[in-house]
């Protein structure tokens, strides 16, 4: 199951904002899951789901030299991140 980021626009006049993420194997399922979890199926709500892997993120204010080139993944951390104890690599 891939990770999808969820953006919701609760009503007209507002922009979509990021509310969290869901897991799903495909876009249709991701959209439905997002609707169930983040809107409790309210009407008139607009939902975007985007595979987290498709998001390109900028670096925070810190000096860029500490990080890989700017076009980087949204939740990828600097190289000294350790896998939690005992977790098998998946």
């Amino acid at each position, binding site marked *: *199951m891939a990770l999808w980021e969820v953006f919701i626009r609760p009503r007209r006049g507002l922009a979509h904002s990021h509310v969290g993420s869901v897991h799903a194997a495909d876009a249709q*399922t991701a959209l*439905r*899951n997002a609707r*169930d*979890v983040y809107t409790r199926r309210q009407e008139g709500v607009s939902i975007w789901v985007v595979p987290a892997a498709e998001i390109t993120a900028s670096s925070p204010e810190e000096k860029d030299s500490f990080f890989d080139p700017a076009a980087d993944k949204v939740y990828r951390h600097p190289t000294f991140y350790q896998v939690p104890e005992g977790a098998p690599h998946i």
Partner: protein
Amino acid sequence: MSTDVLALGDDALIAAQRLAEWCSRGPDLEEDIALTNIALDQLGAARLLLGLAGSREQPARTEDELAFLRTDREFRNCLMVELPNGDFAVTMAKLLFLAAYQKPLYEELAAASSDDPELAAIAAKAVKESAYHLDHAALWTVRLGDGTEESHRRMQNAVDEIWPYTHELFESHPDWLSTVDEVLRESTLERPADGWRPTGGRDGVHTEHLSRLLAEMQVLHRAHPGVTW
């Protein structure tokens, strides 16, 4: 033909009871939430329908009196909804067939608002939910039918197992068959041959499953007659 409101309510109640059994047992967290959501929808419709049916009796009965104090011979749900959940494929087959039945039925009832405005109002609310249930079941039937070899086998088995019970549902709804056929086709599944046609639910002649289901559902209520919870 007057609508058997009690039968509709019983369909929804027993379907809700079975779906709720998936709580904390779903194949993933998102699906656990989805199934519980659908169970809640069915339960909500059941409460409104039973409430309406009960209010029209002489003397009137409440939704709880109907749910907790009738024996299985007095329930009028179709046999299909009382069958055990089986694996996820069986549950989805049951939901597909049920939603494909409830949706056009609720649509008709909602449209006939001059005949029975109270029932029409309940049906109008239930239509949207039914459409959602049908989409959900179709989405999964397709993925299981056209997924792995194992999921295809399980989904075909599920369709084969539940198919005989669908005859009790759709005598008067040709749309049902075309809706279901389309989903089966997209899922690479075969529609079973029509042979055995178990029936009797509408007359209170159920499978052995219902009285066990009711024993569990009713036990606490019956242990303390007449109290408030």
